[in-house]
């Protein structure tokens, strides 16, 4: 993404059009952030992308870390130096950093340390929909949940203030729909540069022994309640006569307000917006609950606020019916949807039990669009070569362990080759046990370059150390591809100031007896090398390397285009059914032959050898594709 220069303007201007993620970035800038880091992950990526572009202009430090734990520890070092530090992660990334979070929370930090976690309700681009508000509860740290772009910016600033004055990390929970919502953003003023970093050696920076720090942490949380109350981030809209209420957490407030407006029940329903996740605003919740008989709670994923209300009602000795995700008034899985909230509120107003929303019927007649690798993608040729290697060696029951990245599309046609995929880097450990317990089968672990650096390395070390017969196939496209081509420690796209650490050097250093690097488009060579690796009895590593087709320097680079000789093409469909480059389409004449869509073809020439009657050749093109 390209930086909108207005985001850097020192003083408020006219409102600008911005993405939710840009609003968070601006909030950090306004707070005078000195170091920002994270690991790419949809839907959080644009926060760091914005900060990385802003950093050199404004003179702070922003960069990608190898994984979220490293990012968290880097931010820890910054905070220990008195600098304001930001960690950006998608929800599952905080699992990787959780070990650090659960111990740093007990340390009196110096510079403000804020974690922005973008959760993905419904798992729109994730393997799960975990609710990271629960981390705030477990770590006993203050947490905030904004409902608009304005609040995203403002609460990020506030989070730094709270963190620094109470010397405790603060979590901000966002969700996909806020992160990727475009709307107007009003800017605040950028704070004057923060104090110069200085590490104080006169004290110790550790929670050990943890008992006293735990008590201090709980005291900080009580103080946070007062600060949050003073900031007025939570609101209560009531005329004092309602018996019904709707309580909404963070972004879900928008759905709650809209439902109230749509049903035109503004005079009958009290409305509570809760942006302080931890601690919950207990006094305000009591005021809200006091006159009510029934409440609907709207929130994303967990029944966090719903349970908070139930507890508070119990503590008050108050009988009130609390409906929400826990009670079944709203679906207990998936993102909050406007129609569900309207139905549940309608039922509350009428006093009837809610109609549970059914699945929207999908008309069978509308054809689906299957996603596939881009044209010119190196993963396609690598899987093609792997299938060939299996064929050539007569391996018909391989175990192919996958990992997280674009190459996960290997689960789908035409390859249908992957069999497992869990968390980042999990392919290594999973493959280790599969090889040990299935000694008569070939085990291949497929992992991307960025995923290997992120969390694959410890597992790779284990495979090597235990001498397990796993073929580690690294799909190295030189960037973190699926999130938009961010650089990592093996990317040549890095500046000269960084040391490149190629994957094959890791393999060698870890003692793998067989390590080979080959170009992904080299379909004359790649299958043979994979066969060698598969035939060896110890661990082996094959690095299949070719830059991501969407890497800017790749786009429009080649001045040729594939073409199909109609006279030679016999309509066998190998190019579609075995290879599947989207540039191949049925020829317009409808005679069952294939042609190349010139605008789709990148000219990568990877398809040179895949056509049995050799109908594919290449010609110069006048204008390269864009």
């Amino acid at each position, binding site marked *: 993404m390209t930086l909108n220069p207005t985001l850097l303007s020192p003083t408020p201007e006219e409102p600008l059009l911005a993405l939710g993620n840009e609003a968070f970035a601006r909030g950090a800038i306004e707070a005078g952030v000195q170091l920002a880091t994270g690991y790419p992950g949809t839907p959080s990526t644009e926060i760091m992308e914005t900060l990385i572009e802003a950093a050199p202009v404004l003179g702070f430090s922003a960069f990608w870390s190898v994984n979220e734990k490293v990012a968290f520890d880097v931010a820890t070092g910054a905070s220990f130096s008195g600098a304001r530090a930001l960690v950006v992660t998608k929800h599952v990334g905080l699992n990787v950093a959780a070990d650090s979070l659960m111990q740093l929370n007990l340390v009196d930090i110096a510079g403000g340390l804020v974690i922005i976690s973008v959760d993905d309700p419904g798992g729109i681009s994730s393997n799960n929909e975990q609710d990271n508000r629960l981390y705030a509860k477990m770590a006993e740290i203050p947490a905030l949940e904004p409902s608009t772009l304005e609040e995203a910016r403002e609460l990020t600033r506030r989070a730094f203030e709270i963190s620094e004055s109470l010397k405790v990390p603060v979590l901000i929970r966002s969700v996909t729909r806020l992160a990727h919502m475009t709307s107007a953003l009003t800017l605040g003023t950028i704070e004057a540069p923060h104090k110069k970093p200085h590490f104080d050696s006169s004290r110790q920076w550790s929670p050990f022994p943890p008992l006293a720090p735990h008590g201090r942490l709980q005291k900080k949380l009580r103080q946070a309640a007062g600060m949050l109350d003073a900031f007025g981030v939570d609101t209560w809209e009531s005329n004092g006569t309602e018996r019904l209420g709707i309580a909404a957490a963070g972004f879900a407030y928008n759905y709650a*307000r809209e439902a109230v407006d749509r049903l035109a029940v503004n005079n009958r329903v009290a409305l509570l917006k809760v942006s302080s996740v931890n601690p919950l605003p207990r006094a305000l919740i009591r005021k809200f609950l006091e006159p009510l008989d029934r409440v609907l709670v709207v929130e994303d994923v967990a029944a966090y606020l719903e349970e908070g209300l139930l507890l508070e009602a119990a503590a008050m000795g108050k009988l009130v019916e609390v409906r929400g995700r826990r009670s079944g008034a709203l679906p207990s899985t998936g993102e909050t949807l406007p129609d569900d909230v309207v139905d549940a509120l309608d039922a509350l107003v009428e006093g009837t039990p809610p109609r549970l929303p059914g699945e929207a019927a999908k008309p069978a007649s509308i054809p689906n669009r299957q996603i596939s690798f*881009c044209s010119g993608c190196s993963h396609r040729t690598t899987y093609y070569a792997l299938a060939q290697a299996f064929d050539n060696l007569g391996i018909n029951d391989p175990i192919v362990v996958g990992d997280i990245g674009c190459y996960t599309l290997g689960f789908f046609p035409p390859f249908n080759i992957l069999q497992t995929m869990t968390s980042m880097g999990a392919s290594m450990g999973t493959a280790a046990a599969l090889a040990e317990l299935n000694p008569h089968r070939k085990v291949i672990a497929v992992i991307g370059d960025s995923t290997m650096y992120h969390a694959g390395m410890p597992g790779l070390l284990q495979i090597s150390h235990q001498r397990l017969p796993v073929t580690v196939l690294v799909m190295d496209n030189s960037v973190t591809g699926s999130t938009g081509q961010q650089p990592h420690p093996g990317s040549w796209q890095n500046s000269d100031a960084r040391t490149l650490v190629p994957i094959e050097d890791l393999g060698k250093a870890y003692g793998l007896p067989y390590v080979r690097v080959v170009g992904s488009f080299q379909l004359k060579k790649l299958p043979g090398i994979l066969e060698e690796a598969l035939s060896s009895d110890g661990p082996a590593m094959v690095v299949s390397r070719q830059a991501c087709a969407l890497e800017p320097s790749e786009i429009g680079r080649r001045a040729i285009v594939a073409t199909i000789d109609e006279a030679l093409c016999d309509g066998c469909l190998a190019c579609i059914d075995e290879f599947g480059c989207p540039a191949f389409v*049925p020829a317009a004449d409808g005679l069952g032959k294939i042609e190349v869509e010139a605008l789709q073809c990148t000219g990568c020439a990877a398809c040179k050898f895949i056509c049995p009657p050799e109908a594919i050749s290449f010609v110069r093109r006048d204008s390269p594709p864009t």
Partner: protein
Amino acid sequence: MSAHEPFDLIIAGVGGQGSLFASRVIAQAALLEGISVRVAETYGVAQRGGAVFSQIRLGYDVCGPLIPKKTCPLILGLEPIETLRRATMYLAPGGEVVLNTNINAPLETKMGRQPSLDLPTIRTELERLGAGSIEEVDALAVALEAGGAATANVVMLGVLSSVDTFPLSYDAVVKSIEKTAKAASLPNNLLSLARGAGR
């Protein structure tokens, strides 16, 4: 239009058609007119050719970014199959559809392995869903006349800005394009917009 007269709009298309640019232009135009705007984009992975779906909500005081089912008064269809997909779920009875007639069928359909949909069928289906009007435009042909296939999306924006119920003015859309488009492609974009709007 007052800031409190809400209006929803959906843009349906496939990757590579410039539907994200189109929704950006509308959002920017709304901002220029002082009308509140919230846009939610749904798109697949980075790849080309996936379904792209933008929900644009104008003039609300507070609202979520998602449009409730069967309530959308206007759909800008950059691709007919995608238009029908979204209309099935979101089009309000009597809602309007502005439709680019150039079908971009998924590969499996081109291969004859999935049902295909032709324009007359799509038209009948939209009518069955209760579409109040369907305005068909061969945006590609208009764009080619105006200077290139790449601005078919802007031709459609032109058609959109001439729809009576659409709350943003043609001038705001022009100003927004001037702000949003790259300088080199600006003349082409403005010409395509004018052609689409019949100016």
